[in-house]
């Protein structure tokens, strides 16, 4: 029952946006619904912690530990993103129709995101992932500039081509399953029959799914659309895209890892390790050379997805725990960074790093948030990303991959100095007046509130993990590990 309510709330809000003359209330209502989703998800997580799982329809819809963790992260980012959107739209948008379009799209996007962890049937998960693309394309192009349209087009083409490869991957996987005499297509059942599946067919499914969904996660070299889309979209949408959408798609891949690991000679772990390392490495150097601060955070997302992938590829229980930590830390920290970036954009009207100097004098809240966000996302202690990256390195040293882990640490170091260096240049230094044609505005109260609320877990989680969250993380890593 509660699971149905979680997906019903955003749909209701989308319907509300379809009504005429609702433009003044629709974003507060959206926020209210998102907050409702957060409360309901917290309750559902309580059930999951008590019983191990909660089921709406057996073999189709339900939550287990890992799914509940992701659902909770989605709900939290959604809450802050809708709150920020409320302020953002109030300050920048006058057209009633466009406000309602934005709200309707945002809610539908929220619905598709929330649906990904809720479905336990991989085919339905594919549909949910496809819907996240379709519902977010018009959010990416919302500014309707040439650049935004270009970003939306690239985003759509690359991820949809990937989705088509992935759907064939799921069909092939089902084919393997049905040839082994089982037609209950769920993650858990797949893991159960995995040793009996024809290895060559599982290998084909693996490559189709990893390449196909990898395009959406941002695996190098399929990442080219990601900095475009994640920088051109309105900041709250960037927070959702970068903070949680990529992780949600990666979740579907790693959920299938028990199946791929069972196939002899496929070496699924090694593939993920290599893919993750390449993504982290390439992203680290892209971070150093970029000139646009929203692209900076987008490249950092490519890096973080690489780190999660790398940790999953290490394959030990400790690494699995580090991977889910990284997923949680990334979602909370990256969304916060984009709100801070949105604050800087509002104060200066430019996305170019070199044109922003002395932000601390012009917009103290945005500057402070950027300062904390950059340190947190780069992995400085005592923030959550530091904890997870440290855990990844420790798990790596404990396994047989010492040389690879040293390389990994080098990439993390490069990314750290790139990120922190760029952002410190923006915050300090002699203040620079914005260009006369720049569109600046004072950040409205809801957006400020979103920044403050999003900051809380970023600061707290590195120092203290609440017991229920720790239990969820442990349950998630159990689902992920061997």
């Amino acid at each position, binding site marked *: 029952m509660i699971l149905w309510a979680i997906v019903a709330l955003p749909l209701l809000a989308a319907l509300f946006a379809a009504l005429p003359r609702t433009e003044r209330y629709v974003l507060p209502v959206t926020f209210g619904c998102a907050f409702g989703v957060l409360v309901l998800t917290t309750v559902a997580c309580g059930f999951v912690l008590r019983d191990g799982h909660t089921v709406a329809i057996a073999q189709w819809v339900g939550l287990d530990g890992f799914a509940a963790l992701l659902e909770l992260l989605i709900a939290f980012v959604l809450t802050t993103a809708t709150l920020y959107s409320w302020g953002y739209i109030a300050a920048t948008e006058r057209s009633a129709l466009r406000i309602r379009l934005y709200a309707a799209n945002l809610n539908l996007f929220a619905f598709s995101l929330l649906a990904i962890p809720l479905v336990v*049937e991989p*085919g*339905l998960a*594919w*549909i949910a992932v*496809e*819907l996240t693309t*379709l519902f977010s*394309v*018009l959010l990416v*192009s919302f500014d*309707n*500039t*040439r*650049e935004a*349209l*270009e*970003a*939306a*087009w*690239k985003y*759509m*083409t690359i991820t*949809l*081509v990937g989705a*088509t*490869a992935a*759907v*064939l991957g*799921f*069909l*092939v996987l*089902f*084919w*393997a399953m*049905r*040839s082994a005499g089982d*037609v209950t*297509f769920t993650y858990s059942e797949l893991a159960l029959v995995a040793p009996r599946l*024809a290895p*060559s*067919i599982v290998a*084909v499914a693996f490559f189709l799914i990893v390449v196909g969904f990898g395009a959406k996660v941002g695996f190098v070299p399929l990442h080219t659309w990601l*900095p*475009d889309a994640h920088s*051109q979209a309105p900041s709250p949408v960037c927070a959702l895209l970068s903070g949680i959408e990529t992780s949600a798609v990666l979740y579907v891949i790693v959920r299938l890892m028990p199946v791929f690991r069972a196939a002899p000679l496929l070496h699924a772990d090694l593939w993920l390790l290599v893919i993750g390392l390449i993504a982290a490495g390439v992203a680290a150097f*892209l971070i150093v*050379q*970029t*000139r*646009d601060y929203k*692209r900076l955070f987008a490249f950092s997302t490519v890096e973080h997805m690489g780190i999660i992938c790398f940790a999953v590829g290490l394959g030990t229980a400790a690494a699995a725990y580090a991977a889910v930590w990284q997923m949680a830390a990334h979602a909370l920290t990256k969304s916060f960074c984009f709100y801070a970036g949105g604050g800087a954009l509002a104060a200066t009207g430019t996305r*170019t790093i*070199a*044109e922003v100097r002395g932000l601390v004098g012009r917009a103290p809240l945005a500057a402070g948030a950027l300062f904390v966000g950059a340190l947190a996302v780069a992995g400085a202690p005592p923030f959550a990303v530091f904890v997870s990256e440290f855990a990844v390195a420790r798990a790596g040293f404990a396994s047989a991959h010492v040389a690879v882990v040293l390389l990994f640490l080098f990439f993390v170091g490069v990314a750290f100095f790139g990120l922190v260096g760029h952002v410190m240049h923006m915050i300090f230094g002699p203040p620079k007046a914005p260009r006369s044609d720049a569109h600046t505005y004072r950040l409205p109260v809801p957006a400020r509130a979103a920044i403050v609320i999003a900051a809380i877990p970023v600061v707290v989680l590195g120092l203290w993990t609440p017991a229920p969250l720790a239990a969820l993380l442990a349950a998630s890593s159990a689902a992920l590990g061997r």
Partner: protein
Amino acid sequence: MIGESLLTPAQEQANSLVLGLFLLTAFGMTVARQVQATLLAFVAQSLLLACSSLVLGLHPLSVHLLALTAVTLAGKVLLIPWLLRRIVPDAVYSRRELSQPVNITTSLLIAMALAIAAYFFSVALLAPGTPVLSAGNVSIGFAGLLVGWYQVAVRNEALPQLLGILAMENSAFLAGIAMAPDFPLIAELAIAFDVPLLALIVGLLTRALQERVGSTDVGALIRLREGGEP
């Protein structure tokens, strides 16, 4: 082909004809210069997908495949062309794409090479003796997927790129109906909801491009890149 067939000889023959034509439409979509011609080739291809699933679904009778036939006809053959014609301005359809990076003869040769590669790949895939309704569907499906992918890469106009994605999806399902005729719901749901939505959104985006940029030549959209103008 490999493995024992479950189909009657009449079904085999009808399906083979459909599959041959399917591959032909994939080539046609890749090289047709006019946007309107590409759209027509896509409609023909979707019709052929519906035919294949009808032929395979008649005996032994499969409700899944017949349902797939129905939603393919309704969604891809009727709804998508109607949506695209309605949303996208007429000027786009008569446009001829003159500036493809690869000329048509070369394109055709590349597409054929991809199809042949897909054939050998699918033979290897079918070798373990995993049961399949029609091996031809798997070969042509993989071939269509690669040719469709090539189409997305080589076409510069917005709509032919989109139709390339939809052609890839047609091919994936062409292989899918032979591999997993009872696949739970996904194909039907995807075609019934995702695909029309996709056409709607691409249509809106294409119209925005036409209005805002003055062209739907998406190959010319190269402003966003590293080290570009700040």
